[in-house]
């Protein structure tokens, strides 16, 4: 191996145990981020963090004089003596003790084995139970060495979580996570069990086509081979999306006829929502009285036969039932108390009105996700499958609904992981836009609290957060601080000027600000310094390409949508029969019957559907439908609640 440089140490710029300086020829393959090896009485690995070039010119004025004031003159016969002078941060010293300043010696470009040593990957790459997950290729200095992170530190239990920052629109954050999930699924060690991923699609069609192959270049395929990751889309993808307000068309961009069949509706009823009623309450709403009333509803009312004290017995299972209950209570207080009653079972009428408004409001704002009545359609709790990606498309859902989905899904994941009954041992939860969901400032929302909880305690359970955001400095410190592995794509210069990046040299910041697509800076507990890696384009269809290749279908008429949904459940269903059956029926009745069939999944779908529809799926509230939805409160209303 040929030396490419020599360590130099002066009184002004001495070598230390953590940093050294070396010079190279003017023409050199190394640059910022290159890993080098110093071979002397001890071996030292370092990563180049700063570079300088200067000549023997004492002052710029001498160059002006030499060129006689003409910058276009290039006829100087001799090239000025110049230097390429580099600063490197120590990655590892061997032996590690005693820790000493870097000795003078020749500098070499690190080869594959050196990279593994330098990044301390040898411990988890060559052990009896390897836990190495490829994160990319180290390509500086003309090398092509795989870089691995330790699954014990990426997915727990030693450390966990991953945070990725980068400016939007450069296909880095989502692509990196997609590649990394593919890598995890390919390399997650058998002794660590089964793993799945839950991805929240919060914008556009980003994660809607993870099961479709993307266009890969030969170079990308070569990189996949080098990293031993299959260059194929995810084999097992389950996509969930809420319905639109019509209750039959899916609220997602993956509605192309060829693909829409794979999308499962996500609809929740009262039971699913009320457990997370706190999500629906804003900071001003949270008080002991509201909490007490919600607890009362949960414990004493929902799912039980309940006497309201005014002579009516209720069985509250849907929003419609709940509305009926509230109406009965308010009417009872009005009528039976002669208008003077303001307390029911120790709960003040104002508190009850507030809770009613918040709960029923969600069924209006998130119509399609939350159903007034009828059964729910949910994720396959307790039967999560190994190496499966569960995508929940909430891009077009009201922010309140997004919060609700996130809170409920993560809570259920946590609950079932804790009981070891989810079906897998670890779940990666990918959340984009942490700037929105876990901002450093602003109110403490339920979602933020949940993200903090995952960040701080998830690793013990196998609940791993992969978070992405544009501005890391504006995400809650404990969320990013608990991420054991951090990835950085191209960064905004203003963001790099914030205190969180002070540990980086100006050259590293400059590289971060100009980072090309497909390159990342990685920080990982085993790496003592940030490392730059390249990763291949993900093997899946990118969102925007997917929308071009599979344009979303326009919403179909109600009858047609019902037919499609039933045909999906049973291919024997004949469309005309369905259309004839539902022609003179109320749409809400049809929706309920459809939901029942979807939940039951009988052998003969049409027969079951006809039976449920014919028997008229009972809605206990025989009230005009327009009363079911309570419009949002006017914020400047005089109402005390």
């Amino acid at each position: 191996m040929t030396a490419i440089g020599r360590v130099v140490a002066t009184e002004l710029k001495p070598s230390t145990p953590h940093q050294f300086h070396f010079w190279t020829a003017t023409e050199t393959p190394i640059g910022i981020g290159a890993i080098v090896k110093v071979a002397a009485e001890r071996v030292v690995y370092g990563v180049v963090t700063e570079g300088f070039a200067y000549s023997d010119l004492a002052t710029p004025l001498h160059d002006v004089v030499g060129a006689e004031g003409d910058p276009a003159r290039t006829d100087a016969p001799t090239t000025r003596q110049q230097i390429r002078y580099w600063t490197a941060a120590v990655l590892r010293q061997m032996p590690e003790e005693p820790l000493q300043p870097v000795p003078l010696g020749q500098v070499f470009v690190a080869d594959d084995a050196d990279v593994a040593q330098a990044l301390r990957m040898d411990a988890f790459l060559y052990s009896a139970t390897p836990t190495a997950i490829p994160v990319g290729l180290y390509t500086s200095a003309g090398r092509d060495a795989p870089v691995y992170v330790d699954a014990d530190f990426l997915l727990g239990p030693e450390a966990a979580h991953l945070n990725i920052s980068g400016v939007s629109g450069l296909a880095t954050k989502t692509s990196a996570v997609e590649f990394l999930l593919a890598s995890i699924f390919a390399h997650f060690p058998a002794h660590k069990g089964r793993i799945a991923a839950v991805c929240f699609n919060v914008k556009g069609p980003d994660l809607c086509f993870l099961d479709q192959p993307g266009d890969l270049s030969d170079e990308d395929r070569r990189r996949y081979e080098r990293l031993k990751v299959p260059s194929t889309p995810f084999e097992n993808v389950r996509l969930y999306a809420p319905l639109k307000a019509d209750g039959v068309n899916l609220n997602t961009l993956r509605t192309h006829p060829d693909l829409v069949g794979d999308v499962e509706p996500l609809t929740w009823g009262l039971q699913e929502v009320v457990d997370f009623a706190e999500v629906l309450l804003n900071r001003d709403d949270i008080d002991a009285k509201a909490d007490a009333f919600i607890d009362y509803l949960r414990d004493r009312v929902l799912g039980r036969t309940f006497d309201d004290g005014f002579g009516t017995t209720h069985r509250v299972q849907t929003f419609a039932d709940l509305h009926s209950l509230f109406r009965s209570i308010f009417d009872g207080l009005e009528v039976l108390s002669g208008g003077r009653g303001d307390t029911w079972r120790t709960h003040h009428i104002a508190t009850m009105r507030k809770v009613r408004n918040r709960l029923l409001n969600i069924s209006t704002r998130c119509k399609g996700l939350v159903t007034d009545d009828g059964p729910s359609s949910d994720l396959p709790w307790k039967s999560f499958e190994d190496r499966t990606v569960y995508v929940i498309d909430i891009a077009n859902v009201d922010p309140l609904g997004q919060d609700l989905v996130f809170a409920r899904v993560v809570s259920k994941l946590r609950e079932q992981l804790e009981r070891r009954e989810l079906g897998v041992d670890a779940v990666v939860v990918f959340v984009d836009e942490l700037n929105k969901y876990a901002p450093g400032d602003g109110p403490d929302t339920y979602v933020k609290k949940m993200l903090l909880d995952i960040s701080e305690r998830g690793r013990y359970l196998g609940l791993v957060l992969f978070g992405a955001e544009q501005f890391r400095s504006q995400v809650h410190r404990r969320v990013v601080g608990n991420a054991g592995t951090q990835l950085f794509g191209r960064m905004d210069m203003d963001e790099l000027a914030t205190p969180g990046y002070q540990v980086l040299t100006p050259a590293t910041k400059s590289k971060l600000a100009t980072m090309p697509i497909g390159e990342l800076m990685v920080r990982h507990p085993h790496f003592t310094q940030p490392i730059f890696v390249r990763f291949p384009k993900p093997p899946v269809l990118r969102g925007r390409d997917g929308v071009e290749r599979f344009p979303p279908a326009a919403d179909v008429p109600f009858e047609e949508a019902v037919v499609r949904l039933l045909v999906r459940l049973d291919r024997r269903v004949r469309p005309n029969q369905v259309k004839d059956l539902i022609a003179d029926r109320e749409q809400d009745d049809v929706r309920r019957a459809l939901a029942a069939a979807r939940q039951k999944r009988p052998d003969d779908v049409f027969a079951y559907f006809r039976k449920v529809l014919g028997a008229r799926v009972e809605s206990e509230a025989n009230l005009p439908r327009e009363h079911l939805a309570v419009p949002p409160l006017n914020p400047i209303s005089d109402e005390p609640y």
Partner: protein
Amino acid sequence: MTWWQPLIQAGAVPGSGSKGEEPESSERAELVEDGELQAHPIPPAAGAAPPPPVSFLNGMERWGVRAYDGVIPVVDAYVAAAIRRRESGGVLHTTGERHRSFAVAAVDSMTPKLRELLEQSVGDIEPVDREFVGQPARYLEQVEAIVRRARTHLERELAEAGLDGLGADEWLVLDGLLSRSPAVARHPRSLGVIKSHGAQFLEGRGLERALTLPVGHRTSVFTVRGGHTRTETYSWYLRLWPWEGNDLLYGLLRIEARAHPETIARASELSRWLWAERAPLATPATRWDRLLYPLHQVEEYLKALAPRDLQMHRASRLPRLSA
């Protein structure tokens, strides 16, 4: 208004400077070009730069007193010389290098014990005549002359060796007299570049023309006999930077080439080559106005290799702590 401003207004040329070089012996030069010494402008189009490759030779010397045997200074000396070749990219690469470390002392006058010790520890000793012992100033002058002679000898050897390896179209440019070696002085592609003008070859009108040579001009070619070999070479003055506002020797070079009619024919072309060497400036060298950058770089190369404890810093006279 100062007293000299009226002089300048009346036609005197502004200048600056103080004591310059030590005068050396004068020689009578014979013109071989023109009837009397003329100033020739350097033709702008006659060859922009020396054709690659070109080799440059320079040397350096360092010495310092290390010990005293009674009043006899025992001196540690180091001389070195190098040739660096400039290829087409303008970058210099070392093609030859020689150095010598030796002691200088009046060994005949030293106490037997210290002399024996010196001879045992240093294989290479240059003696100083015993007549200088007891006269510190003259003794050190003698040391300086011995070291300079050693350097000249080293440079001559290296130059002669360098000529053997010179390519077909390659030139060798030396810092200093060409005539120190007959073989070098007679070589068709060697040039001596002299920055010191202690020796005077011209007189009268010719001298005045040479000392007030405008920038971008050369003088007529004349013959000189230099070095201990008294080898004849052709020579001319060349002004690289305007002397007005400075001193008469500012930017003034004397060039030596072989004594051959072709030298006269190519004097303007060679001057043009050397004129192109003004850039880059040989700063921060104090005599950058007369030092060609490649020769400066050879000197820097030699300094980088020289023993650091023989730096030419004058020892501080300030009292030092005993520790």
